[in-house]
């Protein structure tokens, strides 16, 4: 049992989503022993997995907030990290479309807001330009605003890269460690009681996503409540991709950013999300009302998209707190930092949040000595359509024929890639994790052809005890 052996970690980070993994990676660069605790059996299995995967510029954040600053910095940090780690990023740009006179009237203020957020490349455009940029839009667009630097990425690869990087820098990833109680000892250490055993640490960072308020209460605080906001998404067939070569944004309303259309790095088109407030933190099912809402919206935004096949539908939960900003707070007495209320922008902001947390910890007295022996970032398998994938790579196939054996036809995933995922530093716990690492079974047939072969390969290659 970890902890029972007397190990005392310098820092325990609770939650291996994007934010937690980024923090663990950051801190393990400073000669600290770091444990990354995850309640589930895989990293990135909570809110991080059902993100819209947009790498935001932060143009529409509330100026002056922590979120505004961290999204802006994170956009830059993740952009360069993605290049180093081979995370697919496509700079598609976004077009915000005004459908009502009120929308249209709101655009100039949104451009000013973008400028207040340090982003000055937005441009207001007329309806003609709107339709020139996205000819498939439904009737009635009155005008728009461009956001040329909004990009799309792969949220799964970002999360996995950060966690893998943390691990190769020496952090320990502890899966199936849900924190159930917190105890303190006279020597200033904290004992985390978890479903995977006791974990002792000197400092604790709470990045538990939807569970952050619960964990915060275990530390004796009562300062915020997370209302899970369910967002349902429809993913359309790759044949729809020519319809949407950039992100199409609505003008933001009262309950979040509204329904958008976005290309995905996997070559699909996404429509969503809905936004419904929930009390059940496990309500990741899809609903009739959600589908009806998206159908209706889609029919108006882009009728031709609705003639294409739906490849997948997802429901994800976002951590809404009723606040307009992140809630990041250090408690020096407790040697504890709360990283709460990180909404969907957490994908973009994650690496900047990590730097921010690091500086908070330093302010609290945690000694930070930069390491000079850091390994290079991991080179992640490319899941993006815009970049070369193994099935296209003659040299790779010549060296290893398994990269020429396409197993998942729709997504063109090869036996070599499935093997690699199963034998990687952070192997999947099951088919869902494999989907996120390889795209296998994520395509239009949803496993009609390949489920059996993919499952066989996974069982053959997964190390004993990984499942």
């Amino acid at each position, binding site marked *: 049992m970890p902890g029972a052996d007397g190990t005392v970690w310098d820092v325990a980070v609770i939650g291996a989503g994007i934010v937690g993994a980024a923090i663990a990676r950051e801190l393990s660069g400073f000669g600290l022993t770091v444990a990354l605790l995850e309640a589930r059996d895989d990293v990135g299995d909570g809110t991080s997995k059902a993100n819209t995967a947009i790498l935001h510029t932060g143009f529409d954040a509330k100026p002056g907030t922590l979120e505004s600053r961290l999204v802006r910095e994170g956009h830059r940090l993740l952009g360069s990290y993605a290049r180093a780690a081979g995370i697919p990023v496509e700079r598609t740009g976004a077009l915000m479309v005004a459908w009502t006179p009120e929308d249209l009237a709101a655009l100039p203020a949104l451009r000013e807001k973008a400028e207040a957020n340090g982003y000055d490349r937005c441009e207001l455009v007329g309806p003609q330009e709107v339709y020139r940029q996205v000819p498939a839009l439904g009737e009635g667009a009155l005008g728009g605003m461009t956001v040329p630097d909004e990009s799309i990425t792969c949220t799964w690869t970002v999360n996995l890269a950060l966690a893998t990087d943390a691990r190769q820098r020496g952090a320990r990833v502890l899966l199936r460690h849900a924190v159930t109680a917190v105890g303190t000892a006279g020597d200033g250490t904290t004992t985390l009681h978890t479903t995977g055993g006791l974990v002792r640490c000197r400092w604790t960072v709470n990045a538990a996503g939807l569970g952050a308020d619960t964990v915060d209460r275990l530390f004796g605080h009562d300062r915020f409540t997370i209302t899970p906001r369910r967002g349902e998404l429809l993913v359309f067939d790759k*044949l729809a991709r020519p319809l949407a070569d950039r992100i199409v944004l609505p003008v933001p309303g009262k309950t979040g950013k509204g329904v958008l259309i976005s290309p995905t790095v996997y070559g699909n088109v996404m429509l969503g999300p809905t936004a419904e407030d929930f009390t059940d933190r496990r309500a990741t099912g899809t609903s009739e009302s959600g589908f009806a809402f998206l159908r209706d919206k889609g029919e108006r935004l882009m009728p031709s998209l609705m003639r294409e096949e*739906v490849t997948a539908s997802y429901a994800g939960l976002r951590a809404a707190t009723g606040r307009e900003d992140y809630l990041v707070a250090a408690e020096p007495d407790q040697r504890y930092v709360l990283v709460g209320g990180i909404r969907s922008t957490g994908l973009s902001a994650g690496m900047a949040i990590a730097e921010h947390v690091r500086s908070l910890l330093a302010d609290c007295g945690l000694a930070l000595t930069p390491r000079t022996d850091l390994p290079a970032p991991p080179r992640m398998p490319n899941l993006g359509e815009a970049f070369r994938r193994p099935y296209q790579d003659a040299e790779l196939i010549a060296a290893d024929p398994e990269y*020429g*054996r*396409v197993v998942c036809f729709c997504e063109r995933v090869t036996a070599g890639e499935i093997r690699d995922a199963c034998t990687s530093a952070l192997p999947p716990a099951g088919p869902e994790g494999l989907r996120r690492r390889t795209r296998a079974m994520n395509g239009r047939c949803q496993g009609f052809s390949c489920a059996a072969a993919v499952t066989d390969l996974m069982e053959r290659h997964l190390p004993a005890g990984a499942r």
Partner: protein
Amino acid sequence: MTAQVLTPDAVVVGAGPAGLTAAAVLARRGARVLVLDREDTPGGIPRHSDHTGYGLRDLRRLVSGPAYAARLAETARQAGADIRTRAMVTHWTGERSLAVTTPGGLLDVRAEAVLLATGARERPRPARMIPGDRPQGVYTTGQLQTLVHGGHREVGSRAVVVGAEAVSWSAVLTLRAAGCRTTLMTTRHARPEAYAAFTVPGRTVLGVPIATGTRVTRISGRGRVESVEIEQIATGRRRTVACDTVVLTGDWVPDHELARTAGLVMDPGTLGPVVDTALRTSAPGVFAAGNLLHPVDTAEAAALDGAHAAERIARRLASPETPAPGVPLLAEPPFRWVAPQLLRPGDPAPPRGRLLLWPETHVPFPRLTARQDDRTLLRRRLPWPAAPGRVLRLPWPPALPLDPKAGPVTIGLA
């Protein structure tokens, strides 16, 4: 390192009944034929249907699906066709050129003629937009059959089968072989779609109750399926049926990716390419056959399509052709589609001398008419019913008084 260039006379994409039959015919005609299939073994869908019912119309004897698949592959091979499996066509590199990924490397296939025989698949759950949780235990028939037949994996013990077509009964048989009881079949239609030959013994021998006029409105379960919610469409009344397995059958969509990325003219009804009665698509030298064109008809119908297309491809290889302009053939409700969709003067009758129609309602003895502008070209009463979920075959008249200069021909009920 670059791709290996292959230059067969004809390349067939898909080694199912249509592709293999076409390859055998073409090879016997002396053509150099390359068959590409992404699966490990040739044969297509019948490979996994481990029960009898195949081969009656083309092999003239009844065999099991796997035996039928093996037989077609062997015949094509013996005729001289080069069948390559684990060969995934990824995209077009020219009008009749294809890029292919294989474990042996990349191929650049440049042919005189291409036959698309990529088949069809059942719509999986997301495409049907059935809300609810995402538990394990929800399959399409194809998925179930690969799991049971190929992987010998265990399924649950109580299944709900969505659909009551021939393929749905195939799913029931597969479930039974895997030790899973079908507790209910559901169908949107007022009556089961399959032939009485399936439905009567299915209901009595297999003891499967059928809920007609219903739709599945929710799948529930954490981890594993626990229940489905079923709505009586007419009344809106809903009930919950406990089960640990759900099989979504039928609701076919053609595997049309290559057809669409080639820019072929597509049919809004079948969602496959538009073809004439010689099974030519809109691109010169590109033909199509099988369930890509009519999702779905039987394996034998696909095979006979393949033979039909092969004759026309052989003819094209022998002497270049310029097909005459055609007259579009359109389906009227209650038919969702008709195939083929283009009539050219001088062209042959369609495969097996039948036009295929997909009815959306049940009609006991349909009286069909074909009209061009205000002229009636054909009036015919069929002695068999039109039933949703299966193809209606209309025998091709010996001489259709078609006016090649007039408007489209519409086909519907009198």
